[in-house]
């Protein structure tokens, strides 16, 4: 956008400057027009140029004004130099006389009028787009938006929090894993609220813990009764991975050291054995909710035949 604005700005300034200067150069030969001293020509042109820009509508940024002035001066210099060079090549007069004639007799007011006409004509659409007022309004809007975002509540209680899932499949060469996507086939999963527990051999748990956490009774065996409310939320992942803090109360006394402090998020994770859990699950847990069958599931009766057979 910025680039586009600059390009149109340059185009507008070049058009205005070129139009004014070229016309003034052509009309300089017309007799009877008031002549302006060469030393006054440039300041007057500049003043008219700025006046036109202000009159057209205060739509320019400071950058736009500077750009226009720069273009105008550049074009003026280029055209005057080209005119002198052309006259010299024609050998009509000496360089000094021609230059004096060109610069001193230029009716600048005509050039400025042309500039004004250009500015007010349909070509005004080429004027710089990033107007000062618009920019200020945009900036104010951005500031207001940022302020709203900063003061917005952290989370709405009615919005369901999706637990982030580990991205096991990452494309080769991809450094940043994509944001986790809630799997569609799980969207329809309705987790049944079933009360109860599963019994898990203590050894299956303590074997995954570091020696420094184990108590005197750790090697004695026994079972840990883990509530289904801990197991079931993990089950759709195909494994039951829980933090020690979630099952610490289920372990028999003496399994862990009695002087253990309070675990934070650094509590070790434990994989509870699926082969022990699944046979103990109540039947209703594994009941599949009747979802709408896919449309492609209906097979054309004419195709109900074996296509491939073992030779």
């Amino acid at each position, binding site marked *: 956008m910025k680039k586009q604005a600059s390009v149109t700005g340059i185009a507008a300034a070049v058009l205005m400057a070129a139009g004014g200067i070229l016309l003034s150069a052509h009309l300089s030969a017309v007799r009877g027009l008031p002549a302006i001293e060469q030393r006054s020509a440039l300041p007057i042109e500049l003043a008219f140029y700025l006046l036109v820009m202000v009159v057209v509508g205060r739509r320019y940024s400071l950058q736009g004004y500077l750009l226009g002035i720069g273009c105008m001066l550049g074009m003026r210099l280029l055209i005057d130099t080209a005119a002198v060079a052309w006259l010299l090549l024609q050998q009509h007069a000496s360089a000094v006389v021609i230059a004096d004639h060109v610069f001193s007799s230029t009716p600048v007011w005509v050039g400025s009028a042309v500039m004004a006409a250009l500015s007010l004509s349909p070509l005004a659409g080429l004027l710089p787009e990033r107007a000062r007022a618009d920019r200020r309004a945009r900036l104010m809007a951005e500031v207001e938006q940022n302020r709203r975002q900063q003061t917005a509540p952290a989370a709405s209680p009615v919005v369901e929090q999706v637990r982030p899932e580990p991205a096991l499949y990452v494309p080769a060469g991809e450094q940043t894993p994509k944001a986790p996507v809630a799997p*569609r*086939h799980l969207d329809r999963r309705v987790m049944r609220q079933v009360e109860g527990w599963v019994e898990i051999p203590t050894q299956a748990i303590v074997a995954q813990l570091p020696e420094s956490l184990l108590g005197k009774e750790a090697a004695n065996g026994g079972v840990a009764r883990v509530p289904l409310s801990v197991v079931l939320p993990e089950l759709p992942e195909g494994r039951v991975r829980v933090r020690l803090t979630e099952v610490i109360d289920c372990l028999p006394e003496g399994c862990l050291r009695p002087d253990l402090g309070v675990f934070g998020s650094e509590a070790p994770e434990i994989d509870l054995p*699926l*082969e022990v859990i*699944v046979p103990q699950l109540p039947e209703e847990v594994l009941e599949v909710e009747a979802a709408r069958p896919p449309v*492609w599931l209906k097979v054309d009766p004419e195709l109900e035949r074996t*296509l*491939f057979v073992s030779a």
Partner: protein
Amino acid sequence: MASINYALKEISCKIVYYGPGMCGKTTNLQYIHEHLADDRRGKMVSLATPGERTLFFDFLPIEAPSVHGFDTKFQIYTVPGQVMYNSTRRLVLRGVDGIIFVCDSQYDKMAENVESFRNMEENLDSYNTDLDTIPYVIQHNKRDLPNIAPVPFMEWLVNRRQVPSYEACAVTGEGVFESLNHVCRLVLSNLRSKQQRGTL
């Protein structure tokens, strides 16, 4: 994407075996290749590492008996199951007409089955399609091994749509042709429905 050549009266469809690493996708293909009549199968292309891991994909063209007067050809692919080859998996899924999702029945592979299924859904999503529109069947493979999960649990994990599923042992061939036949029937039937609806 299936193609129908009316001039040659020929239908060509793409079937993909998808699933986690080492679940038996290539074994399925090998069994089909070894046990299909010579005039029904083409040359199997397989690019595997010495550790019997599929490096890119396996490919096997097979030919079914004429259906409604059309010669029906299936191009069967497998994907590399290893985590790092997702770009290849996505590429192989392009234009797929039917999928056989192969699960490993061992308890310690359940999480990989789930992850692979999700990965398949995400990869299909990248082509703006999903399993509601692409026929697929589930194959519970390696049923001959010890320490396997019961089928109802596996169905609960990966078959929420209750699509056709088969217990299989790809090494012995149990359930291999049953899965293939079913998905081929579903693909052809789906193709016909699309043709009748004018969406093909």
